[in-house]
């Protein structure tokens, strides 16, 4: 099949970018979207042009490395599918594909389709964990966890940290990402001691990183390749509210606006 690609090319963070048109012919519908970019890059290399930079690694939809906006939709048109698992059979012969990086103030473009998502790491460093020193754990079955709580925790923990939620959000908010981690750890008994401090620290870190606020559009859930539910945002908001009622530790209490 034949596809017309308009790919965002940008030499560096401070350079200005633009769409460049490439035509690809004779591609197989069984190829994955990233294999299409591979083929295009091979062609560019053959004529000694610089290949398109894009992040990718596992190509199984779990590492969260890949992610581009295809025709306005993060990870492209298929429901619950990362760009690496998207296959060309979902496009029609002759289709035009507009391919661009995640666009958000907190995710600056590094080069071409590659963005800097280290803001997500900083949010987790601020509190997205349970403090459990190696060696200090009690016997695993000493603590019972109701199956529904474990399942709910797992639903939230499925997040792959790709950033599609931010790219989809009109406010470039990271609320779904934060909500997923807060809900995962908050659903489990092990996560209770730090629950309210965690939510305050993570929400503060999200604000500091320059992400926007949540105004309940729900675009994040629609774009999420793991179908993380916006119900977790409701959970986050409840936890933030409760955090204002618990006594602050070390003078740290939530004061911002979620």
């Amino acid at each position: 099949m034949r596809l017309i690609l308009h790919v965002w090319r940008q030499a560096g963070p401070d350079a200005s970018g633009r769409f460049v048109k490439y035509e690809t012919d004779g591609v197989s519908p069984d190829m994955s979207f990233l294999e299409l970019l591979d083929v295009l890059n091979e062609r560019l290399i053959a004529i000694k042009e610089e290949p398109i930079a894009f992040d990718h690694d596992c190509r199984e939809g779990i590492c969260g490395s890949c992610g581009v906006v295809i025709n306005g939709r993060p990870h492209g048109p298929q429901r619950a599918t990362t760009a690496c698992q998207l296959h060309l059979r979902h496009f029609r012969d002759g289709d035009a594909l507009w391919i661009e990086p995640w666009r958000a103030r907190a995710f600056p473009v590094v080069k071409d389709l590659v963005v800097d998502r280290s803001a997500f790491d900083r949010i987790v460093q601020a509190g997205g964990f349970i403090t459990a020193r190696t060696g200090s754990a009690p016997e695993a079955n000493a603590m019972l966890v109701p199956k529904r709580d474990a399942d709910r925790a797992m639903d939230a923990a499925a997040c792959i940290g790709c950033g599609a939620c931010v790219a989809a959000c009109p406010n470039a908010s990271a609320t779904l990402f934060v909500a997923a981690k807060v809900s995962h750890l908050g659903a489990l008994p092990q996560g209770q001691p730090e629950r309210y401090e965690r939510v305050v620290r993570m929400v503060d870190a999200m604000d500091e990183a320059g992400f926007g606020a949540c105004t309940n559009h729900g675009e994040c859930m629609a774009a999420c390749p793991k179908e993380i539910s916006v119900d977790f945002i409701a959970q986050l908001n409840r936890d933030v509210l409760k955090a204002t009622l618990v006594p602050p530790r070390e003078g740290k209490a939530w004061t911002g606006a979620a």
Partner: protein
Amino acid sequence: MIGEMRPRVPEGPIQDKWERHRFEMKLVNPANKRRFEVIVVGSGLAGASAAASLAELGYHVSCFCFQDSPRRAHSIAAQGGINAAKNYQNDGDSVWRLFYDTVKGGDFRSREANVYRLAEISVQIIDQCVAQGVPFAREYGGLLANRSFGGAQVSRTFYARGQTGQQLLLGAYQALARQIGLGQVQMYPRTEMLDLVVIDGRARGIVVRDLVTGAITAHAAHAVVLATGGYSNVFFLSTNAKGCNVTATWRAAKRGALFANPCFTQIHPTCIPAHGAHQSKLTLMSESLRNDGRIWVPKKQGDSRRPGDIPVGERDYYLERLYPSFGNLVPRDVASRRAKDMCDDGYSVVPGGHGVYLDFSDAIARLGTSGIAERYGNLFEMYERITGENPYDVPMRIYPAPHYTMGGLWVDYNLMSNLPGLHVIGEANFSDHGANRLGASALMQGLADGYFILPYTIGDYLAQGKLEPVDVSHTAFRQVEAEVRERTSRLLAVNGSQSVDAFHRELGHLMWEQCGMSRTKQGLENGLQQVRRLRERFWKEVFVGGKGEDLNQSLERAGRVADFMEFAELMCLDALQREESCGAHFREEYQTPDGEAKRDDARFSYVAAWEWSGADSAPVAHHEPLGFEYVHLAQRSYK
């Protein structure tokens, strides 16, 4: 040889060795820990758990990964589960049984004492992960659930849906993130180790390239830990992530660390077959599918009927036929080899390619579509996404693919290589899986090494003192840095006409043909010649493009492929000298009359550890003899 190749296995009965060793090892005074710098390369299960645990102890840690975040290391893709000898199911499991199964499954080519310790520590890992909030599957009563996995006769596998590796890695990543936040770990994402620095016979640092700016810098430390995973991507097509590579361990080998058993590579039986010339990687379907799926091919060669039109009597359920007691649940190496045999004999169900059926129709009749969906729903969806076929209606088609490498840098009982100060953990070392790894054991080993072994043993090394203070102004650092720069410029300067990927594909194809699932003397000798010729061509004809001082993914790959080209030769050599079949290493000349692997314990009950001796001379093999005091040598039988 730099250093010495002494296994340093403690004396005493096997069940007391680790306990006793922990007591005998020297401790670092708590006030002194903060004076020690440790470098950890890699942030998968082994690297992240080690970096977090060392930082908790008070060491200063620098951690490096080539991905944009430590959370993306390839451990994240492990699906099935993690073994532990908890015996929660009361089905007769024990530390001894897990130990026995692992030694036997590895076809008696691993070090007994290490394997026993792994089984012993397995129970602590589950405790640790639960405390971190890993959402393992639960029973309705709130207790942890288990399943049987990879042919084990007990249910000892803990799992988090089909995403166990992801959840365990996120647990370790979060522990690491906490230490980064506290300033105990300096994290260097998008940074690739390109060489090791050895001073006075000790590993004292590394040279890295910042993958965004291209800056090449040196980092000094008191000890270096490599947790850089395996080398399945030598085959180009594998289930590994695209970035997985041999560079860190190979560079260390070229600086004097011994590389052990490089020919022990595992081929996973249940992967989605390759579909065409542009295939960039292979996708694994969890081994758990073999619990309910039945593997078959038509009895007639080249049968072009649709699978549903082939009557049961005209199907060959060959695993059930050949192995009546284990059937579809035989170990990975056996299942893979049999699939290859059937396809080589003309029974492939992928036109012009390689594949066999994995059929769920009987299981669907027994459990209903919803029962199957509950167990394997996410896997079935993934299969359909990739192939466009619905496995509820038609059988899956599968074929083996390179998946895991048991070989790696040689380490002693303390997980230290022969090069003092260089520790190697996780898939990057050779130690625990012998010639074949059992399902759900890789996650166990990575976390055992990182959480519970290395943090003790590295202290023993550091407490012995004798480490001169060095920093990156030392001439050794300057020199290695210059060598790395020179190599990068040389890659860019070739300016030929063929892409890096084209060379990688060619290397992978030849390794798969000559040093893949089944090997012969002739093939390996040809392989050696072909690898050498390909390497020469690479350095004359490759085109990298772009600049060194920029984000340049073609340059990143070029360096990795150049190292694979050197390493591939060692793999062939190792496979050639091992004139026996064991586990995943199958030499066609050495098989029983019914086609099973035939070990030669009298000649080959050893670890082959290779010493690099320069580009112009052959590497030297050193042997660590393996003794089996507790698990008696026996022919594996799954009939």
